[in-house]
């Protein structure tokens, strides 16, 4: 089983790589650069009302879950590997634990917040 975990994790990591590559740039641009109080279009169409309408779109909910969870897995899996390569290998266990804890918490809370409005 232990062996399978690595293959599966890599599968998730790889999926995350694609998701982040295709979806994250536009998300950052739309959410934080373009329609932003100090952004390029500063009229801020992300008013609370607009945001809630968008947020209640089930398609958008799905989009957020996929984007957030896989990007987290991808990003932290990668960074973890880099940490080991630059001398943090002795702390392999705590780092690995921490990384998967953050991924779990992040994914769980995304699910929670996205789905909570449904109930």
């Amino acid at each position, binding site marked *: 089983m232990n062996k399978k975990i690595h293959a599966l994790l890599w599968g998730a990591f790889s999926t995350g790589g694609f998701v*982040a590559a295709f979806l994250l740039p536009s998300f*950052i641009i739309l959410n*934080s650069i373009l329609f*932003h109080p100090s952004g390029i279009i500063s009229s801020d*169409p992300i008013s*609370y009302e607009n945001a809630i309408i968008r*947020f209640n779109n089930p398609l958008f909910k799905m989009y957020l879950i996929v984007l957030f969870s896989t990007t987290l897995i991808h990003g932290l899996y990668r960074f973890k590997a880099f940490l080991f390569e*630059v001398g943090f290998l002795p702390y392999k266990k705590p780092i690995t634990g921490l990384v998967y804890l953050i991924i779990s918490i992040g994914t769980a809370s995304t699910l929670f*917040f996205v789905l909570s409005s449904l109930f």
Partner: protein
Amino acid sequence: MSKEFKPYVEKNNNFWWLTNRRYFTYAMREISGLVMSLYVLISIYEISQLTSGSSSFIDFRLLAASPLMFMFSVIALAFTLLHTITWFELTGKIQKDQVPKISGKSPPIFALVIVNMLILFAASYLIYFLFW
């Protein structure tokens, strides 16, 4: 064969990633993972504020409007784009052998990168069209 004299094991230089350009690009690519993750964590916080009502969401938006946070968003975008480009470059090397051959030859990697880029633009526009 027993080893009478112990071979000398050199200590690994933890700053190897500063020793050549390819290594450095790689390091930046890996660090992009951290930056993207941070951005996602902030965004999770953002939706948590959104679900708890109008005032907390507006508080968050004001915080996000601070120059420091805006700066971070720009940096996050830069790293994400680095990720996107390097990811397309790398996956292109694999896709090259998976797509059907055109008159016996695999397509060049840059062509695949361009195709991926087109998908990126299409996906981005679709997201904009659907949700914003």
